[in-house]
């Protein structure tokens, strides 16, 4: 039976990263150490935004984006849970608009639970969590219309966004709402930065629940993430140094070079031509190419023949008729 060659190094590295997170979660649970989390302006602004909405007597809008129910949507709903808890205490109305039916169902359950936990079940309005549409611009139109009609005082745009991101941000800006936005889409983050008051960039989005709740499990996971980052930085540094050393100090010697006959799809070689691999001397030693370096071989254990390699004469074996 044939198998995909997935290599072992990438699996080993991912397992190592997983163990970092799990170890730190366990450590935080057992030791209960308080972890310092640096200030994140976007999350500090939550209370300010809700306070403003309370003073103005207008609703707070929350949009988890158009994405399906994945880790990003769950994280967005987590943050909305915190926003809702604060809004519920001040009897500030909320509007949570969903573009995915699964996200809508989970969001409704979570928001209802938040009101129950706060002992304010009577303040929960079932229609405050809404499914608008799963069609991108129908969703954009629906939410923009709601922003205009209800004159929301604060808008939280957190989740997976596409082209509709700027429509929401600019519409909310046009009515003077405070906007806190965060997206894992690199293409939309610049739009949010241009249009919103506060933006959660990159992994700040995932740090939000740890920052807001300071729960040991979450802060432990955050420490694990930092360990991963430090390991990655070390790997990049070591890899760069090793590559530089190998390229500068070691010339490719003649007998190490693999010479490959062209594959069947090249001009002059009929289908069915046998591909041959053999070692042949180079005309003169040269600097190693990136594909011949130690790090490249570590991550790409069986590299495919590349066009840069020297070509031998066409093999006359095989079919071709």
């Amino acid at each position: 039976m044939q198998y995909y060659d997935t290599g072992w190094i990438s699996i080993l590295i991912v397992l190592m990263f997983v163990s970092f997170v799990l170890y730190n979660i366990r450590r935080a649970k057992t030791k209960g150490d308080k972890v310092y989390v640096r200030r994140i302006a976007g999350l500090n602004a939550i209370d300010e935004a809700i306070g403003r909405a309370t003073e103005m007597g207008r609703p707070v809008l929350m949009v988890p984006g158009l994405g399906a129910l994945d880790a990003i949507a769950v994280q967005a709903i987590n943050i909305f849970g915190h926003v809702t808890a604060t809004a519920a205490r001040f009897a500030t109305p909320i509007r949570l608009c969903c573009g995915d039916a699964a996200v809508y169902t989970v969001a409704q359950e979570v928001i209802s639970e938040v009101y129950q936990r706060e002992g304010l079940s009577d303040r929960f309005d079932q229609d405050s969590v809404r499914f608008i549409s799963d069609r991108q611009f129908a969703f954009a139109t629906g939410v923009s219309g709601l922003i205009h009609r209800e004159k929301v005082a604060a808008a939280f745009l957190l989740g997976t966004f596409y082209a509709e991101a700027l429509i929401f941000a600019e519409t909310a800006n046009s009515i003077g709402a405070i906007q806190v936005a965060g997206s894992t889409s690199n293409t939309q983050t610049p739009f949010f930065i241009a249009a919103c008051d506060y933006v959660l960039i990159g992994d700040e989005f995932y740090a939000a629940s740890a920052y807001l709740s300071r729960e040991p499990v979450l802060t432990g996971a955050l420490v694990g993430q930092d360990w991963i980052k430090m390991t990655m930085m070390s790997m990049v540094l070591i890899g760069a140094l090793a590559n530089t050393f190998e390229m500068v100090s070691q010339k490719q010697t003649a007998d190490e070079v693999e010479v490959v006959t062209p594959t069947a799809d090249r001009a002059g070689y009929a289908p069915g031509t046998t591909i041959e691999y053999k070692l042949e001397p180079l005309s003169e030693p040269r600097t190693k190419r990136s594909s011949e370096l130690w790090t490249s071989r570590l991550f790409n254990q069986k590299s495919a023949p590349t066009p840069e390699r020297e070509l031998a004469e066409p093999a006359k074996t095989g079919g071709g008729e």
Partner: protein
Amino acid sequence: MLNLLAQTEMPPFAAEGGSDQVKQFALYTLIAGFLLVAAMSFVPTKLRRPIVVGATFLAGFYYVLLWLWPKPVNFAPEQKPQGSEHVGVWLTNALPGVSSITQTLTALLLGLGVYSVLRLHGTKLIKKQKDWAFSLVLLISMLTMVTIGYVDYSELKNNPDKVNQASWGFFQYAKDFLFDGMLQAMDAAMFSSIAFFILFAAYRAFRIRSIESTVLLATALIVMLSLMGLVEYALSKQVIDSITGGDPGHFMNNFALNQVRNWIQTYVQGPGILALTWGIGIGSLSMGLRLWLSLEKTGG
């Protein structure tokens, strides 16, 4: 139990749409779903969480195994797996079945979403609340689109010739008018409004208020100018070389905008995006682990 080892027959959920086999499968799934929900409501509250945690773990564990276990490729149905190969074959064959569970759940949840829309706008309409007329328009549009879309689908299924415009009937023209003529056009109109929003947002972002916004403005200006045909040509390497006579030390070489833009994109923008992507990837890994092991308490 489903025999998932080296299947040669199409699984029921992959049968042709509208066939008796699919209808039968949908009915069984629905009954099983209701029975499951009913059974869960009889389970003591204390036991519900462990059941949900267990189900989440098992579902996640399947995908973890699928990723870790060597995946067989190009195996023929007559090939008999040996020893540990059984696991790889089973995991690979089970993938459509496991994916279809997700699809079934999504379809059921879409029903809940539609119910939400109907309840919200139906209430508005019945109680004649503010802007009830818009709710009426929405409900009529929704009903019309669903009816015409379904009749069009059924007619095309029974009479494939109707794909050609010459054989179109009322429902094909109606669907074409509603979908391509109206919905797509309105989508496009909404999308094109982004151009104006970009302009307003860019104006605000590029006002010189701080050192950071000044750097942003200068960088954006270089990138934008380098993409404008005339400026691009005027400050291209060929034109500058003709001025400098090919002297690499000449001051004018600093104005080859294309090269400046390439430098910005390669050494400033590229690494920045990669770093952000890495951070997001690590965050996703950590979040996925917390969800899989039910360590995350949703709702804060």
